[in-house]
């Protein structure tokens, strides 16, 4: 039940994009078309869960054990960057089909606040390993959900007669604002 709550909270209530403001660049950058949004969502779920686990282990058994928690930022970003590199290489060699789908999104993830942010949040929330795993997954799913919903709305907006100065990023931001507003629906539920 506790993990279920963590999951629901991570997807809806503390949605990493719409409530915590993490990962906005890929949110705006990959939501113009549904296909890219789905690809990015998948890539983030994949990397974020792995990053969440590895950084938790690094933090608990390395940083905390050695009492060098001030190296967290440095070590986490290195973990994420090398993880992404590694995943990219691995996929390219072993699962080229998946690589073709996710490949272009992987490099974007290194500099995606959502991944780094979720890893840091896991630590500051003092989750257990399982808790960190569930919460990483839920943040990733929440990211994917928000991205896909946004892409659905955006595909329609792209076909509408939006006034020139508002086209593209500007109207996308306003739309994202209203979507963030609607996610306030879930407030207080868990």
């Amino acid at each position, binding site marked *: 039940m506790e993990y279920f709550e963590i999951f629901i909270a991570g997807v809806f209530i503390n949605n990493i994009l719409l409530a915590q403001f993490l990962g906005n660049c890929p949110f705006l950058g990959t939501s113009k078309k549904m296909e890219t949004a789905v690809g990015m969502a998948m890539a983030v779920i994949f990397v974020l869960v792995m990053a969440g686990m590895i950084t938790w282990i690094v933090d608990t058994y390395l940083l905390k054990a050695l009492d060098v928690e001030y190296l967290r930022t440095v070590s986490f970003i290195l973990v994420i960057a090398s993880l992404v590199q590694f995943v990219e290489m691995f996929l390219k060699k072993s699962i080229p089909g998946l690589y073709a789908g996710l490949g272009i999104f992987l490099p974007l993830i290194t500099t995606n606040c959502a991944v780094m942010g979720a890893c840091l949040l896991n630590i500051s929330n003092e989750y257990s390993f399982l808790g960190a795993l569930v919460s990483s997954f839920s943040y990733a799913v929440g990211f994917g959900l928000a991205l896909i919903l946004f892409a659905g709305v955006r595909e*329609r907006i*792209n*076909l*509408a*007669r939006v006034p020139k100065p508002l086209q593209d990023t500007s109207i996308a931001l306003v739309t994202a604002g209203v979507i963030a507003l609607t996610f306030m629906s879930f407030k207080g539920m868990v």
Partner: protein
Amino acid sequence: MIKRSFFTLTKPRLSYDLVEPDPKESEPIPIPSNLTLLLNEPIDNTRQALIKKGDAVEKGEKLRLYNQSTEYTISPVAGTISAIDTYSDDFGSTSTYLVIKSNQGQTTQTNSITYDLKDDIASADEYFRTLPGAPPLKILASDDVKINTIVITCSDMDLLSTTNQYITLKFLDEIKEGAKVLKKITHVPKLCIMVPESLNVQGKFDSIQVFKTSMEYPSNLPAMILKDHLSMILPAGKAPEDMGVSFISAEAVVSLANAYKTKSAGFEKILTVIGKQGTQYRIKATIGTPLRKIFNAFNIHINEQDRIVIGGPMKGFATYTPHHPVQPDMDTVMIQDRDIIPELSDNPCVNCGNCIRICPANVPVNILVRYLEADQYEEAADKYDLESCIECGLCAYTCTARIPLYQYIRLGKHELFKLRALETAND
């Protein structure tokens, strides 16, 4: 214009008109001094034309522009060619029109040229493509498509039009005769005839399967006939001919029967003319007669901003001139007073969903129209079923935003066709 009824819980229903039970004879229009014929081939100034202004022509003479031309027309009168010029139709493609000045006085007496006919489809295609009713001989004769079913349509495709129903009531024997001719020259294994269910047809068709079609629009459109009566789903983007089915109008069958009997072509086209008040006239006019002559005969006044619609209210097209000639496939002409012309708009779709509820082909018109407006034709076809549309026009009829949806769709298909042609050319 049919108004929305007050209660509109269910989708609106539009019914085909039924011809009066014992229709009176059609009104003949005298042959005018000048007749205009259309040729579906553009003028090419680099080539030596076979015909030119001033040439004399015989009644029934086959006229072609060039030696290699596959398109031809048949002169309905003896006379001289007084003009050959370019004619632009919808979507900007060009063809040619000829004006033939008939030899005054002797027109009616002259007999048509008789042809040296064989009992095969090639021979029929040689002379009879432009018979009244425009039989699809070109397709039937083509080696590329294999037709195994021919459907004779005793009903008109569009609302208000009753030309073919009239012909069915008046010339049933000729239809039977023509069906035999068809069978003889085409050897198709299956011949069907579709008759509106409310039309009181006496007599039996032996060895011909009869479909009774619903009176509800658009059940007479080819895709609907295939679906309802032949259990075939027309794949998106395909024509009935691709599935081995060809449609031929009752009038064309009658013309074929007569043509085979006399070994010469006929030129008398029967039309339903709908006046401004909705009055129906049934007339018989020589192919090539300018519509103006018909209007004059019935005292129909065409004022500025009125509309002349060739074909019915749903699928027809408006012509820009009352000089437009009667053509072999022209079953209906409708004149609309400028006051009842419904206003169209450039509003965007408001997603009211009327089109979705009424579309017989389940096309997501509301989304499709957005892609068409944005000129994304490939996307429109791949994801939003542009090619599934059977062109009934119902969506535009009910559109709350009054978007000319049907026109968007036709244009979209045209553009898509061009795009695809370009792509295959590049490959």
